[in-house]
């Protein structure tokens, strides 16, 4: 496959992606008391603030457009298949001499011609071309008699949505071939307005995946059906904070990312914490977020 997904990235740097973060997660727990004792030896509780962030994904809704090479390859293989395969058992599927059989034979001749060409010329060149779309699938013709009394087939929806033309980044229908991720504009730990993934703080004794879902609802509204994949975080981000911020926050800040899929609905930001949102592809996310944040999440976003 030509696809580059997270698994492929992990395969290239197995230790970096799967084992090293896991080791760093364990070291988080081990280092936390030590770090707290060094900064404020009198404090009994470990000085760590945990956040749960959700990487909300809209998976592709269209198959990827094949490249020019792939299209040529598939056309070539289809021609070979058409040339060497067993003849179609017409008498098994159609009554001999029936209208349906004649229609099938006519369409089959067109498909043969489409595949191999021919020196002969068809009388109605234009309509013949119009009955096939670019993949060789016969389209419905408007002639009712030609369709044996059946209703004409509705043409498929275009692969490019309205929102792609208007540049509407809030639509869930944009870029159907790509993985989209939800980015919201809200305050980060310093109170600055930034683009980030929806996140929130963990409550006392709360599990990470439950906190992630709760924080997603708090920031993006309840008009959305989301499913969190697994209970384990897939990435961690630790901003380098100055001592003063650490004191106001109450310790080191760790943001754990969990993957989720949107199943239905749409984001409705509350307007207080979150002012804006966008469904973006990987390369559209990079210019919006900060550099160290991008370095933490880059490997877990899909290239396609």
């Amino acid at each position, binding site marked *: 496959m030509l696809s580059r997904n997270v698994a492929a990235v992990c395969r290239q740097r197995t230790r970096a992606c799967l084992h090293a973060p896991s080791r760093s997660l364990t070291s988080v727990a081990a280092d936390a008391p030590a770090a707290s004792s060094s900064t404020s030896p009198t404090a009994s509780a470990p000085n760590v603030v945990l956040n749960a962030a959700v990487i909300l994904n809209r*998976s592709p809704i269209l198959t990827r457009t094949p490249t020019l090479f*792939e299209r040529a390859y*598939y056309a070539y293989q289809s021609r070979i298949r058409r040339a*060497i395969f067993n003849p179609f058992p017409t008498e098994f599927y159609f009554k001999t001499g029936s209208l349906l059989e004649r229609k099938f034979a006519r369409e089959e001749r067109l498909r043969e011609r489409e595949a191999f060409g021919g020196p002969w010329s068809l009388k109605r060149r234009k309509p013949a071309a119009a009955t096939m779309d670019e993949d060789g699938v016969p389209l419905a013709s408007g002639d009712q008699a030609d369709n044996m009394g059946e209703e004409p087939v509705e043409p498929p929806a275009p692969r490019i949505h309205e929102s792609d033309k208007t540049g509407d980044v809030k639509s869930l229908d944009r870029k159907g071939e790509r993985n989209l991720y939800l980015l919201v504009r809200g305050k980060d730990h310093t109170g600055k307005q930034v683009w980030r993934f929806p996140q929130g703080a963990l409550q006392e004794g709360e599990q990470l995946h439950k906190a992630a879902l709760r924080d997603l609802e708090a920031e993006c509204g309840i008009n959305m059906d989301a499913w969190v994949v697994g209970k384990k975080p897939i990435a961690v981000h630790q901003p380098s904070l100055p001592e003063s911020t650490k004191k106001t926050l109450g310790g080191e800040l760790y943001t754990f990312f969990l993957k989720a*899929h949107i199943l239905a609905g749409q984001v409705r930001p509350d307007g207080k914490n979150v002012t804006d949102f966008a469904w973006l592809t990987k390369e559209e996310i990079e210019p919006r977020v900060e550099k160290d944040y991008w370095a933490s999440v880059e490997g877990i976003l899909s290239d396609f």
Partner: protein
Amino acid sequence: MSAQAAARAPRLATAAGRSVRRTKPAPTLKPLPRDEKGVPIPHVNVIVRDTHRSRLADHYFHTLQDDMMYMTYVHEPTARQPPRPARLAYNPKDPYTKHRFNPPLGGNRWPKQPPPPSAPDNIIQLERIQIHAMIKTATASRVNLLGPIMALRAISGANEGAGGQHTAEGIELVKGRKNLQGWVRPGIPVGVKVDLRGPQMYDFLSVLVEFVLPRLREFQGIVMEGPSNRLDKMSSASGVVSFGLPPAALGLFPQIEVNFDAYPATFGMHIHCMTNAKGVGAQNRARALLSGFQIPFARS
């Protein structure tokens, strides 16, 4: 000189554009041998590869593979301990116990093995789907197998040696192995089966999920065992999910639906979805994968 040129000219004219060596005429091409129908036989083995992008394969590689990696990940920060021996054994290296007999361990031990450590190389993947139908009336007359063979060919699109691929086995006959009085004898054909891999497998799965299962009456989902089911049984540890379709499901396949009357009898079938998962609890991982392809599962 002119006589030589005149003698050479016609030969050059015939061989023009065909031979790069001027001193030698181009070799005469032998016509291709032809088969009994008069169709030329090419002198290479023509093999048909993929003719289209597989939608479900794309779905697996773009979405499902990552999700399965996250869902099946087991955190093992340190290397695994070697498995504990089932019982004490005499050490063959110790000169005192060197020749003592160590009786071999009995029984099947492979279902008790833990799954391999989580790695991006062994993410669970669908390997093949086997469709299998036992035809009871085939013991009386093997002609009764012709309808099921035709139906499975229509459903699966598989054919022996299809596309010039010698691994394409097509529809196979299943023969009896045991002697059961009044029912089965060794060697008589009792059923048909077909193995699907690659794009064909994904096409079958999408037809099953989009056309057959939603229209099946009183179908709540594939029933799973309860929580008390042990995870180290052979069926739970081999990464195979099997289920059956009733005879009514045959008419719901669109390939059969178009000329349902052409088939003499309907029959039910077993479908085995085989994955590369192994070890304790592999079936549950296989179910998670299949539910990613939208096959419904129900608790019993």
